[in-house]
């Protein structure tokens, strides 16, 4: 990519600022300063998003997601079960038309969307859920994953149906487009446009929070973890890891060195397979404890097993972490899914419903099982209940770990060298998630402020700065902001989905009818 002089000056200026501000303070306090400053700005936003329903301790936003997933599940009559086999058939390419060879296939759209969603939410987020909500959170997480399939189905169908296709052949799709175009069809032109703009604003925050800071934060945590924990030379020096990561991200999204992105994209699926494989190995080692672990998960889901939040606590954290991981109802994935070449938008909906399944029902469950089964959560031998660490607001864990470090410790019990592999996997997962989200962020940014290289550059530089901030902050503050930003997207997106769900139903019924009548045929092989 070639920049004009002025753009180059802006870019180098921003980087210089970054280095200077990092170097000016004593290393020890850099992370602290960043923590305090960012928390000052984010706390009111986080408080609003997670304010509980009056008279309860249930955050209204979690309820919002749960109710939506339930409504979509019933409205489409359990489409996630009915269409499951057909979805796999579509991904395999059984219905692909030969003349479309060379276009984006269903498989590719799914794989790309997955590499954006399978991130540290699956490794670190789940650890947080299990530590805060107890093993029972796993049950609610799986349930949320299964129901989230219906939400994802709805938003990805709409993403394809209302995308913009430009004369040069490129496409833009996602919630901004179905909110503005879809709602206009329903006679809600102005509200639709307002919602699209608000959504785009939240998407930018989501890209910076969950798609960036949280990922950077947990990569740093795992690198510190494998290089000696509290004694590591990087301990408390998150800005160093942040700067290194930011420069690689900078090279890709600003410098246009796409080969790095392409490399990650190709290796992430293998890493995911390796991760699931390692989890299976550990489950095999602890095979005699599997029934016990499931017992803990089921019992915990309904009784709380002495966890402070009880049933409600398990439910909330379970749902929250599931949504954060699979992004169903958030709207982000429909941006990637909308690029597929198909005459039937609904087919992309079918394909996309596999995403929460793979992400949450398979990968997140693996993480949760490994954590529960290896016993890194401390149990009081007298009562058989989990030991509550009220100071940290979670179950007491070995070495007082949480997030990715807890997952790492659990894996380390079965396979001693796996924490190192996990560190590499974490870097790659985080990286591919960051690259995907930087793209989503740019789309939202240009939707708001108009297309143009300089505008994109401004966003991308800001994105890189947030990598450093995310790595330097502590997990609690980062996860709160990341959650709040992601859930704020769901607030707008789901409201739009309710208005547009009849459109999806019409498409679905028409397609399923034709499929049953044999008008839609499998390709001969």
């Amino acid at each position, binding site marked *: 990519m070639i920049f004009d002089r002025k753009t180059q000056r802006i870019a180098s200026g921003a980087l210089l600022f970054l280095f200077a501000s990092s170097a000016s303070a004593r290393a020890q306090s850099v992370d602290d300063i960043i923590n305090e400053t960012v928390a000052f700005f984010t706390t009111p936003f986080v408080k609003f998003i997670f304010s509980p329903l009056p008279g309860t301790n249930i955050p209204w936003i979690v309820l919002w997601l749960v109710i939506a997933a339930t409504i979509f599940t019933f409205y489409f009559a359990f489409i996630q079960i009915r269409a499951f086999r057909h979805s796999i058939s579509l991904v395999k*390419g059984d219905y*692909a038309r*030969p003349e479309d*060879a*060379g*276009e*984006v*296939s269903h*498989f*590719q*759209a799914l*794989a*790309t969307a997955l*590499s*954006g969603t399978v991130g540290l939410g699956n490794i670190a987020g789940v650890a947080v859920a299990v530590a805060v909500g107890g093993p029972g959170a796993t049950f609610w997480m799986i349930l949320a994953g299964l129901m989230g399939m219906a939400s994802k189905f709805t938003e990805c169908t709409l993403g394809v149906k209302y995308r913009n296709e430009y004369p*040069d*052949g*490129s*496409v*833009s799709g996602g919630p901004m487009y179905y909110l503005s175009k879809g709602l206009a069809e329903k006679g809600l032109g102005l509200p639709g446009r307002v919602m699209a703009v608000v959504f785009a604003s939240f998407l930018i925050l989501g890209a910076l929070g969950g798609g960036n800071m949280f990922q950077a934060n947990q990569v740093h945590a795992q690198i510190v973890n494998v290089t000696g924990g509290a004694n590591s030379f990087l301990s408390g020096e998150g800005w160093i890891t942040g700067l290194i990561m930011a420069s690689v991200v900078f090279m890709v999204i600003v410098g246009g060195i*796409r080969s790095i*992105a*392409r490399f990650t*994209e*190709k290796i*992430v*699926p293998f890493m995911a397979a390796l991760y699931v494989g390692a989890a299976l190995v550990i489950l095999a080692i602890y095979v005699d404890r599997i029934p016990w672990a499931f017992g803990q998960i089921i019992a915990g889901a309904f009784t709380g097993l002495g966890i402070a939040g009880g049933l409600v606590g398990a439910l909330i954290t379970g749902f929250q972490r599931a949504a954060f991981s699979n992004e169903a109802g958030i709207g982000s994935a429909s*941006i*990637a899914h909308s*690029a597929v*070449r198909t005459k039937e938008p609904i087919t992309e909906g079918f394909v996309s419903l596999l995403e929460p399944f793979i992400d949450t029902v398979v990968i997140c469950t693996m993480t949760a099982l490994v954590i529960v089964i290896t016993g890194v959560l401390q149990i009081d031998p007298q009562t058989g209940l989990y030991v509550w660490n009220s100071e940290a607001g979670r179950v007491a864990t070995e070495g007082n770990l949480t997030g990715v470090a807890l997952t790492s410790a659990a894996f380390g019990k079965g396979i001693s060298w796996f924490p190192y592999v996990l560190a590499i996997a974490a870097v790659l997962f985080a990286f591919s998630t960051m*690259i*995907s989200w930087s*793209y*989503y962020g740019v789309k939202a940014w240009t939707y708001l402020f108009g297309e143009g290289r300089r505008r994109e550059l401004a966003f991308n530089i800001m994105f890189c700065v947030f990598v450093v901030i995310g790595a330097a902050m502590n997990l609690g503050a980062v996860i709160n902001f990341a959650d709040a930003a992601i859930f704020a997207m769901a607030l707008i997106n789901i409201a739009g989905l309710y208005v547009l769900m009849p459109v999806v139903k019409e498409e679905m019924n028409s397609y399923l009818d034709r499929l049953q009548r044999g008008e839609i045929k499998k390709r001969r092989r």
Partner: protein
Amino acid sequence: MAQEVFVVAYDGTDQQVVDFAVDRAMKAGAQLLIVHVLEWSPYSFLTTEELVERHKTRQQEMTRANETIMKPILEKVRQAGATADGEVRYGHVVDIICSIAKEKNAAMIFVGRSSSLSTRVFGSAASGLAQSAPVPTVIVP
């Protein structure tokens, strides 16, 4: 009887395959169908950006293949006096050549033999066709 069709798998460089096929086709009074395949798998992984730009990229690739590969070779063949058609397709070389041969009821397939290291390890279009071609296949050294 309708004119016979000879399918030629053309990778853009192996001139001798085309020359040989032209010679045979003119002697047999057959029609040539020159096929150029752009290697593509629907199961490869793309970045989000590549995904969104895929349709555009595909159009560019198609145009480039038609302009720089197919058009010049067709011109050359027609100048030599043979009747010829061309086709540019996406996919796996062996699969595409086989399906076109079936589709067009071809009498014969002509393919060149490449000898790079990778083809020695993974097999070449010629060895693939030798195993699965639906009609007699001539491998031109």
